[in-house]
């Protein structure tokens, strides 16, 4: 696969009054055609700055971005725009503009001075709208679309560009869960089917770990880890980058968990989904769920149902849904056990 985007000792940041404020430096990154890269990192580590610099909306402090093996500084603005497209965090709400016109705006660098679209341009616009599965919304006014729908059209607008590289800055922020998964799934598919190099910054860690070919993980202090999600997990750099009090990264679950085990250990006996959910109840109430050993509370869950049973100080307590389990566990802490 050919390298679509490469940075060589890139430094990004802002020009201060006297000295430049460097956010990130000596970045050597590359994205291949067909690769989906997720850019992860806590707030304020420079994700947006990096994307804005690579797309030349913001000047680089130390220059060297190569696009399709050509130094981007040598490309004219229009030539760069023909190869690289961004979807930014700002979501302009434009009134009185049909969504299809918004996508047509994406053809901008290819059009004549008056902005006329040829039949071929129209074809590409229609293809882009189909690619984000939004044909039924194309004639709607932009201002009447929901956040998720508008995001699809912003992506379609970027696609209509026919870029080889697509940069997206938090495209899934403000979207509900199904839309997030859909948008990421869409990007996943576009990278493969259209052989695009895609870089997405996101805070959606679990989704990124599942969907990305490569992670760029920005740790506080400007350290950058790159690699496949699984390698990054093994390295332990995820846990390091998102270090915070009372949370811990669980590699098996590929997720962060709250770490408040004030109530001691608990054991859940049972199998299947219901046992997992019972464990979730206990964790929420402050227990550390362990497979075996000494424990403060032992819950048995009947297979295939939410029936639970606890034996505590020789007395038997039971219930048949998780609400009653949660209530019981809370009661244990208050020492008001009523069988």
């Amino acid at each position, binding site marked *: 696969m050919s390298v679509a985007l490469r940075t060589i000792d890139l430094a990004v940041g802002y020009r201060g009054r006297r000295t430049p404020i460097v956010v990130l430096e000596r970045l050597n990154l590359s994205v291949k055609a067909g690769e989906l890269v997720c850019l992860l990192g806590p707030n304020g580590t420079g994700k947006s700055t990096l994307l804005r610099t690579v797309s*030349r909306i913001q000047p680089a402090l130390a220059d060297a971005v190569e696009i399709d093996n050509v130094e981007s500084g040598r490309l004219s603005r229009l030539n760069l725009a023909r190869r690289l497209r961004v979807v*930014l965090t700002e979501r*302009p709400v434009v*009134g009185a*503009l049909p969504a299809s*016109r*918004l996508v047509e*705006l994406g053809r*901008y660098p290819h059009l004549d001075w008056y*902005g006329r679209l040829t039949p071929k341009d129209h074809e590409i616009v229609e293809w882009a709208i189909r690619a984000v599965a939004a044909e039924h919304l194309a004639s709607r006014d932009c201002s009447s679309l929901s956040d998720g729908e508008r995001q699809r059209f912003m992506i379609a607008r970027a696609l209509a560009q026919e870029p080889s590289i697509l940069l997206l800055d938090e495209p899934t922020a403000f979207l509900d869960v199904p839309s997030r998964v859909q948008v990421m799934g869409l990007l996943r598919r576009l990278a493969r089917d259209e052989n695009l190099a895609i870089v997405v910054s996101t805070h959606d860690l679990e989704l990124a770990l599942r969907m990305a070919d490569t992670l760029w993980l920005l740790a506080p202090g400007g350290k950058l880890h790159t690699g496949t999600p699984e390698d990054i997990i093994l390295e332990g750099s995820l846990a390091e980058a998102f270090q915070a009090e009372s949370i811990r990264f669980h590699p098996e679950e590929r997720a962060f968990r709250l770490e408040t085990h004030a109530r001691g250990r608990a054991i859940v006996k049972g199998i299947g989904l219901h046992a997992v959910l019972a464990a979730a109840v206990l964790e929420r109430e402050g227990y550390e769920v362990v497979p075996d050993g000494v424990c403060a509370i032992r819950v048995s869950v009947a297979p295939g149902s939410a029936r639970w049973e606890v034996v505590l100080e020789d007395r038997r307590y039971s219930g048949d849904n998780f609400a009653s389990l949660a209530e019981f566990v809370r009661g244990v802490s208050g020492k008001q056990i009523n069988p």
Partner: protein
Amino acid sequence: MTFHRKRGSVVLGALAVGLIAAFLLSLALGSVWIPLNHVGSILIGNGAGENTEQVVIVHDVRLPRALTALLAGAALGIAGLQMQTLFRNPLADPFALGIASGASLGVALVLLTSGATVAGVFGSNLGLAGDALVTAASIVGAGMALSVVLALSRRVESPATVLIIGLMFGYAAQAFVTVLVAGADPGKLQSWIGWGFGSFEGVTWQKMPLFIPLILTGLAVAAATTKQLNALLLGESYASSMGLNVRRMRLVTMAGASILGGVVTAFCGPIAFIGVAIPHMCRGLLGSSDHRSLVPATILMGGIVALLAQVVALLPGLPLNAITALIGAPFLVIILMRNRRGVFTA
């Protein structure tokens, strides 16, 4: 998609017809009524059978007046549209960068402080020399305001900051004007207030060789940058990512719009309302923010509204500036109410 295109051409056609009608009406109406068929034959030039008095009235008074109104209306509308798109602000108008205030300051300096000679010229029914002086002062004032704001804006990143700088400059210039007004003697105030009413009657044939090319240049800039204006609909970052040189576009647009606004102010006085309202009317009628149809519609609509305002201003005691708003505001409110969702970039 096709629906919008169709609606666009219907609206543009109707506006073109409306503009011709308003233009003819403006030629026919005045101190004496000249029937439309007479107006027509005078315009074509075979006014042989007509009485010479009518020919003189149409040629020397009404034609320049109507042309001025048409061009001024179109210019203000376009300048307003450019500013609104550039600053992504529905309240921006041609004078948002302090251009009108700069022009006012120039004119106030001439009208309110100058010595007896100029006052004498004005006392004798606005002689040509004094008139030209007012125009020149206005152009100089507007030009200075423009260059100051442009110079400052080159150092500024955010368009909102540019807008605020312009507004502050306007307030400052206005403050000087207020000081001048406070210290002026009542006789001079008369001509100052008269200038503030606005009028399309001051542009005679002698001034046209300056007025027409300046306005047409400004309009041409807007017509040639519809594609760039469309790119700006999504904000400067996106426009830049599409390959637009945003800084240069900002300068070109600000200069173009300010020249349009400044020239109209210099020749016709400070004419309010048209600049801010016409773009909204056109967005409402077209149901579109696409500048490819919005620019021609704004030119036509600006011409129509200015011509109609000029016709109504023939009634005694109604200054032009009062009429543009009086007939325009209700019309605009009706259009906006019909598009409940709003037609402006939020």
